């Protein structure tokens, strides 16, 4: 099986393979252009007669459950990143597979974290053939150096749901780590010592996988309410001492930034939104968990409080700051994709105005619409942007793959997408002639806010008109690029070999870009 084959140039001008891990793939055709026909994929019919009438699906060990679920060479196993860097379950699955001498698995995580670095040894010894999902940090470096046997596939959260739903990816075994569950397999993430909030990233897996295993360290008698995952989809339940490390589950950048440069970016972003008329009584926004994004929420709060306005809804990643806005009445609803701290978990559990979502409700390409396009203001990050407003979130300017896409691609469909990013990080300019890897087409990215000026996408003539007399430093993106290069110098481009190591999928399943093996030539 060839890792990749039949390179073509796609609608984004990028050279991409149309054969990926032996299967054919469609090159990117443009935003909203690709509309495949046919039917949703479907899992096998099950019969309740095959399951214990007393509802008890508990199996003594994960190993036994995996064997019963049909663990064998070449299958696809999915896991989820609700526990972020505190996950104790995913690695155990592959420890067991390795011990049994299983080869060529495909790992289908919703995201990977530094705690998954041990997977590199299973990628090396052939237990795992490839990762389709995200390859962060050490796993990304491993991929960039061409060491992964299969071709990596990077998908957004929505793209993951799309791939499962239209049959591009078939999950053989889904292992869902659940902070609380009952013996029937009903599960939620809002109770238990590993409480993480929603379990939305596992929803598709529970519905479409051949076999579903729930792993919990807090087994309670039926019923487990709320049942974010329904036991009706579940084959086996496994109880462990500990499935996650609480202090690492609640991690990431969840504090307001103290960096004066980033506070300036936050202040200018908020002022931009205000001056451009994007904030109004009943508006909606998404702010991520990064320090800059959190600080923008603080500035939004000041504006809303002063004018006695409310946001109709905020799209989470939630955390204590967003919860404060909800509880103060500055935000009416939180639609939450993941929860970054215990205040978020508590609020989701106790406050009916704070609800969990899944990629189905928020991002799914095969839905009859989804709410990502209804959000007024979307604040995102990027590793690079180019003069055509294309943006990169997966590779760095040195060519290495270091991050996953997350929900980033999906949220680009919001009405105004703003990227507050420093013009250069140390000496690395952020604005390039062309991004190393394109993850988001420029037509969906509206504003770049840097500490030396703000660039508005020329397609957004409405915003340009509104900001004509602004006191904010509005510049062209070319001016900003020149300013950075005057300070840092013009950066050389990374050298690559002609070997593709991974691809970036667009939200519709087409191939947006390829990631190439880095060259070691000095």
């Amino acid at each position, binding site marked *: 099986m060839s890792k990749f084959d039949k390179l073509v140039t796609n609608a984004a001008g990028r050279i991409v393979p149309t054969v990926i891990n032996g299967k054919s793939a469609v090159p990117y055709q443009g935003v909203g252009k690709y509309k495949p026909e046919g039917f949703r994929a479907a899992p096998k019919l099950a019969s309740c007669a095959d399951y214990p009438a007393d509802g008890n699906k508990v199996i003594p060990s994960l190993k036994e459950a995996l064997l019963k679920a049909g663990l064998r060479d070449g299958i696809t196993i999915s896991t989820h990143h609700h526990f972020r860097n505190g996950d104790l379950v995913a690695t155990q699955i592959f420890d067991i597979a390795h011990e049994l001498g299983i080869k060529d698995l495909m790992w289908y995580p919703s995201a990977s974290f530094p705690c998954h670095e041990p997977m590199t040894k299973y990628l090396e010894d052939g237990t795992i053939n490839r990762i389709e999902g995200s390859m962060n940090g050490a796993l990304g470096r491993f991929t960039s150096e061409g060491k992964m046997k299969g071709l990596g596939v990077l998908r957004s959260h929505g793209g993951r749901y799309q791939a499962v739903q239209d049959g591009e990816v078939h999950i053989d075994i889904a292992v869902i780590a659940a902070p609380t569950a009952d013996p029937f397999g009903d599960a939620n993430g809002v109770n238990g010592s590993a409480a993480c909030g929603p379990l939305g990233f596992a929803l598709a897996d529970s519905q479409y996988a051949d076999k579903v295993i729930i792993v919990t360290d807090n087994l309670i008698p039926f019923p487990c309410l709320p049942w974010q995952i329904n036991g009706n989809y579940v084959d086996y339940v496994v109880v462990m001492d500990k499935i996650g490390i609480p202090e690492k589950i609640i991690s990431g950048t969840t504090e307001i930034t103290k960096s004066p440069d980033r506070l300036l970016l936050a202040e200018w972003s908020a002022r931009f939104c205000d001056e451009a008329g994007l904030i109004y009584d009943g508006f909606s926004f998404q702010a991520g968990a990064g320090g800059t994004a959190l600080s923008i929420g603080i500035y939004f709060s000041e504006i809303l409080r002063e004018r006695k306005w409310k946001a109709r809804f905020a799209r989470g990643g939630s955390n204590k700051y967003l919860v404060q806005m909800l509880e103060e009445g500055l935000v009416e609803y939180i639609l939450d994709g993941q929860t970054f701290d215990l205040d978020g978990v508590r609020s989701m559990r106790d406050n009916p105005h704070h609800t969990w979502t899944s990629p189905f409700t928020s991002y799914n390409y095969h839905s009859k619409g989804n709410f990502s396009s209804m959000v007024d203001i979307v604040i995102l990050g990027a590793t690079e942007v180019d003069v055509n407003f294309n943006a990169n979130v997966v590779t760095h300017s040195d060519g290495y793959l270091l991050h996953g896409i997350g929900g980033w691609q999906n949220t680009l469909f919001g009405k105004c997408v703003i990227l507050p990013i420093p013009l250069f990080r140390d*000496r690395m300019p952020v604005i390039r002639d062309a991004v190393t890897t394109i993850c988001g087409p420029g037509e969906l990215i509206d504003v770049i806010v840097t500490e030396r000026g703000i660039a508005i996408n020329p397609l957004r003539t409405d915003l340009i008109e509104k900001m004509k007399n602004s006191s904010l430093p509005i510049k062209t993106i070319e001016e900003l690029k020149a300013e950075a290069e005057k300070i840092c110098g013009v950066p050389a481009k990374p050298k690559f070999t002609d070997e593709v190591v991974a691809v970036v999928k667009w939200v519709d399943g087409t191939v947006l870009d390829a990631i190439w093996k880095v060259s070691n030539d000095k």
Partner: protein
Amino acid sequence: MGAIATAGNKGKGVRSDCFVTLELTDQGGIQLQVESKVAVMYGDDIRRNALDILAYFGIAHASVKIEDSGALTLVIAARLEAAIKKLITTDKVWLPPMLAENLYTTPKDRNRFSRLYLPGNSPSLMINAGIHKPDGIILDLEDAVAPDKKDEARYLVRNALCGIDFYGAERMVRINQGERGLEDLEHIIPYNVNLILLPKCEHPDQVHAVNNKIQEIVNRQSSLVTCHSSLDIWIMPIIESALGVINAYPIASSAPNIVALAIGLEDYTADLGTRRTSEGTESFFARSMVVNAARAAGIQPIDSVFSDVGDMEGLRQNVLRSKALGFDGMGCIHPRQIVVIHETFAPTAEEIEKAKKIVFAFHKAQELGLGVVALGTKMIDPPVVKRALNTINLALKMNKLAENWRETYE
């Protein structure tokens, strides 16, 4: 084996800097090793520059290691030059290009509400300092630099004066005390420094020594980057001792290029044998002396820094006290303090409204040729008019009032 010298910083948390290790050898040419987090983008550029600089200083045989954490070219050059000058004696200097936008001068009476201290050996804090719009930036060669780093800081500060854009902030340098301070001047005077901060000033002679040295450098250097006469470089003495407080007026009035008199309270309270408190009772006399001396000499009194960078409300209260005592500005040690200082020193909306009334009446009286300014039936004394004029000027400078406000004033 030859002599070895090092310069710069490395290790965890160090950013935008580099660490240079230089060993002079007898033969074998230049052995250059570059380890950089931006090697892919700038590795070739770093190597090329390093070789140029070594050649410029006539070094043909050496082993050089550059451990880079994303330093700008002007930083790497300063580190390399510092290492070289630890091993060889030379009058040559390697300068980054002087940016055209850095060739501005500052008026004597400009606003000096905020001046941001930047440790003279920390490049990462310098690069973005100007975007926070302080009235002045201080490249500090004195207390913010460790004793064993004071030599290398000179090259970094000099290169920063040439190559970093501070976006219109007044370009200040705090030199060291005594003889070292006078030597510092050699490294900064030719590079369009706007103002010299003179620490621990106790006597007018210290001011004269600095001015003489400036004059000497200006006279000696025929090829200055800019053509400043010595009196275009302003001086701000810092009063930091009991003796300095007693001599505040003689110091403030000792030279025409003194534009402000600052007070440094940490050293002052230590000298008094007391401790600094947030109420500031212990420094009330000294602060009042400095304000009085400065006003008597017709220059700006500038207050000490507020050191709790997390306490914005405490800072605001401190600025209000400072303003009430008569100070025109204060130092800051974190960019977040700048906005609070500016907002609090700026005239309030209420003060501006009151001043508008008085100034409008004053102009009306002038137009009518009246010697007395009156608001309704109330006579307005000349000092009140003067204060109102000051308030209006300040409001204009800070864009809190339109230039043509009188045209629409009722």
